[in-house]
C-alpha cells in the first residue's frame, strides 16, 4: 500500500456573511497517495477550490472558516499546527499553482526575485545558490533563455510562459504535494497541451503527488489516476479514472459525461442536466442533487445518502446504489 501523503477527513468549511452560514465544503473526505495524481472535478459551487484553499489554510482574508474535520499531511493534522509551522510547509512541502497566470505573479518584482524568495526561505540557500537554482528550475520547465528571464518582469511574458514560471516556483522546493487549481483553464488549447505535458513529466520525475482541480473532464482523463467528483460541497463519487469514464454510477457524473460534446463524435442532441445548482436557500433537505436528478425518488428528497463503498475502489453517494433492493423498487419520479 503506497504511502498516504494527504488524508482529508470530513472537512467542513463555511462562509459567513450577513449572519448566514454557507457550507462551501460539507464533509469532504479523500486521500492522495505518494506519486499519485488525483483529479477533483466539479462546477461552480462544488467547493473544489475552497477545499484546496482549506488544505493550504489560505482562508484568512476571506469570510471563510474551517469549522470541522481534519487534514492529515505526512502524519500531522494541518488544522492543529500553529501558523508559523504552516508557513514552513506552504511553498515547501505543499505548493500551489493558481488559475490566472496573468495575476498570480507580482508585477513589480522580477521573476528571479520571486523565485528566489521561496527558495531562500525554505531551502536556506544564499544569494548565489538561490539564483543558480532558480535558473535551473526555469530550464527544467522548458523556458528558453532562462538566464535572461530571471531579470525580466512578468508583463514581458505570455500566459503560457507565466504559468511555467508558476510551476517552476511551485516545484523549486521539491514539494511532496502540488495543488493545481484549474492551471490551464485560462490558456489556449495548444499551450494547455504543453503545460499538461510538462506537469505530467515533472510529477513523474520527482514522484510528486498532484491534486488537480478542474471542471474539464478531458484534462482529467489525460492526467489523473483517480478522480473525486464534487457537487454542492460534497463528494458524490470517487474512483479510478478508467472506472469513472466507463462505469460512472452517480447520476451527476453520468449526466456530466453525457453532456460534453466529444471531439470526433458528433451527436444530434446533447444530453443535459436540467436546472441549476441550487442556491444556499434552495438546497434540498435530502440529497443535494435531488432537484436535477433523473432518477430521483421520495427517499432522495427526505434523507441524504452517505458516501458508501460499492466496490474495492469506488465510492458513491447515492440511494440508487446503497441498497440493491431499493434499486429494484425505484420508480422514476421527477423531471
Amino acid at each position: 500500500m503506497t504511502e498516504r501523503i494527504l488524508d482529508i477527513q470530513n472537512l467542513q468549511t463555511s462562509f459567513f456573511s450577513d449572519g448566514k452560514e454557507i457550507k462551501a465544503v460539507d464533509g469532504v473526505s479523500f486521500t492522495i497517495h505518494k506519486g499519485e495524481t488525483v483529479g477533483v472535478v466539479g462546477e461552480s459551487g462544488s467547493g473544489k477550490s475552497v477545499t484546496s484553499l482549506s488544505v493550504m489554510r489560505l482562508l484568512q482574508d476571506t469570510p471563510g472558516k474551517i469549522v470541522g474535520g481534519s487534514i492529515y499531511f505526512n502524519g500531522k493534522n494541518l488544522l492543529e499546527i500553529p501558523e508559523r509551522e504552516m508557513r514552513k510547509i506552504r511553498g515547501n512541502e505543499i505548493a500551489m499553482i493558481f488559475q490566472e497566470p496573468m495575476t498570480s505573479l507580482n508585477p513589480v518584482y522580477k521573476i528571479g526575485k520571486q523565485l528566489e524568495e521561496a527558495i531562500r526561505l525554505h531551502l536556506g540557500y544564499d544569494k548565489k545558490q538561490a539564483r543558480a537554482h532558480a535558473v535551473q528550475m526555469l530550464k527544467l520547465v522548458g523556458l528558453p533563455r532562462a538566464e535572461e528571464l530571471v531579470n525580466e518582469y512578468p508583463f514581458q511574458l505570455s500566459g503560457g510562459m507565466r504559468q511555467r514560471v508558476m510551476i517552476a516556483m511551485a516545484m523549486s522546493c521539491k514539494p511532496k504535494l502540488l495543488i493545481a487549481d484549474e492551471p490551464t483553464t485560462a490558456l489556449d488549447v495548444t499551450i494547455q497541451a504543453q503545460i499538461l505535458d510538462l506537469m505530467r513529466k515533472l510529477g513523474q520525475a520527482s514522484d510528486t503527488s498532484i491534486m488537480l482541480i478542474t471542471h474539464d473532464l478531458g484534462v482529467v482523463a489525460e492526467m489523473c489516476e483517480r478522480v473525486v467528483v464534487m457537487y454542492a460541497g460534497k463528494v458524490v463519487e470517487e474512483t479510478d479514472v478508467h472506472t469513472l469514464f466507463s462505469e460512472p454510477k452517480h447520476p451527476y457524473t453520468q449526466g456530466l459525461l453525457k453532456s460534453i460534446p466529444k471531439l470526433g463524435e458528433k451527436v444530434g442532441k446533447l444530453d443535459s442536466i436540467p436546472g441549476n445548482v441550487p442556491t444556499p436557500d434552495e438546497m434540498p433537505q435530502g440529497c443535494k442533487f435531488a432537484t436535477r436528478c433523473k432518477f430521483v425518488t421520495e427517499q432522495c428528497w427526505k434523507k441524504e445518502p452517505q458516501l458508501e463503498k460499492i466496490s474495492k475502489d469506488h465510492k458513491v453517494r447515492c440511494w440508487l446504489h446503497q441498497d440493491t433492493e431499493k434499486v429494484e423498487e425505484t420508480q422514476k419520479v421527477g423531471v
Partner: protein
Amino acid sequence: MTEPLVEVKNLKKYFSTRKGVFGQKKSVVKAVDDVSFTIQKGETLGLVGESGCGKSTTGRMLMQLLEPTEGQIVFEGKDLSKLNKSEIRSARKNFQMIFQDPYASLNPRMKIKDIINEPLIIHGYDKEQRERRVNELLDIVGLSPAQGDRYPHEFSGGQRQRIGIARALAISPKLIIADEPVSALDVSIQSQILNLLKDLQNEFHLTYLFISHNLSVVEHISDRVGVMYLGKIVEIADQETLYKNPLHPYTKSLLSAVPVPDPKIKRERIILKGDIPSPANPPSGCTFHTRCPFATERCRQEVPTLRNVGNGQYVSCYLV
C-alpha cells in the same frame, strides 16, 4: 447556387499604436488580415482559433461594431460599408449578437423585461406588440414571464445567457453572431444552451456565425468550420471533413491538443513549440511557420493563400 446570406471579402482590421515622442513610429496590430468567407442561409459557420487569431474582431466587424480597415461585408447582396448611419441602424434588424460574458452583457440596473424590450423599442414596435413579444421570448428561452420583473444579478450564468439570447431574437434577425456564447458557463449548463441554440435555429430558420475556441463545441454545432490563426483563415471546410481529415498543420495540432474525455485514448500529440506570436509582430511569410513542424524556406518567405483542394475544403499551406 443560391446567393449567400453573408459574404465577407478581403476583410482587414489593423489597429495602429503610436510610439515615440512625436508619434512617428507606428506599430500596427494586424488583428484581421485579409479574411474572406461566405455564410449560406440556414447554416452554422463555426469560427475557431486561439487568442489573437482575430475571430472575435471578425465577428464585431460583421456586427458593425468595428469599422473594417479594408474589405467588404455584403449582407443579402447589400454592401454594408456603403450604408450611412441610419441605414445601418435599420439593417441591424437582420443581424444580432450573443455575447460571451453573461454577467457583463446585461445592464445590471435594468429589469430583464426592459432589457429584452430595448430592441423592440428601438425598432418601433408599439406597446402592445412589445409586451406580447417579451413574454413570448421569455417563454421561448425557457424562462417565465413572471421573472421579467427581476434584475440580472438574481439569475445564474446560464439563465442570463438565455436572457441574452432572448434579446438577440427579439426583432427576429436572420443572422445571429454568437461570440463564445457558452465559454463562461459551467459544463452542465453549456449543453442546455447549445441544445437551445440548435432548437431555435430549427424553429426560426436562423443562420449562425459561431465563434469559439472550444473545438468540441464548435464541432457539435457547426455545419462548416473555419480555423483562424493570427488574423488569417488557414483552413475552412465542412465540419465533418475538417475534423476527420484536417490538412493544415495548425488544424492538425489544434485538434490533437484537445484533451479527450476518455482515458483509454492516448493520442499522438503534435505539440507545437513556442508561444503564439503577438499580432503586433507577426512572422514573415506564412504566419504559422515559426511553430510549424514542417516549415520550409518558402513558408518563411511567401504568404500562402487559401486554395480549393476539393470537397468544399480550402487550405492555406504550401505543403498541401
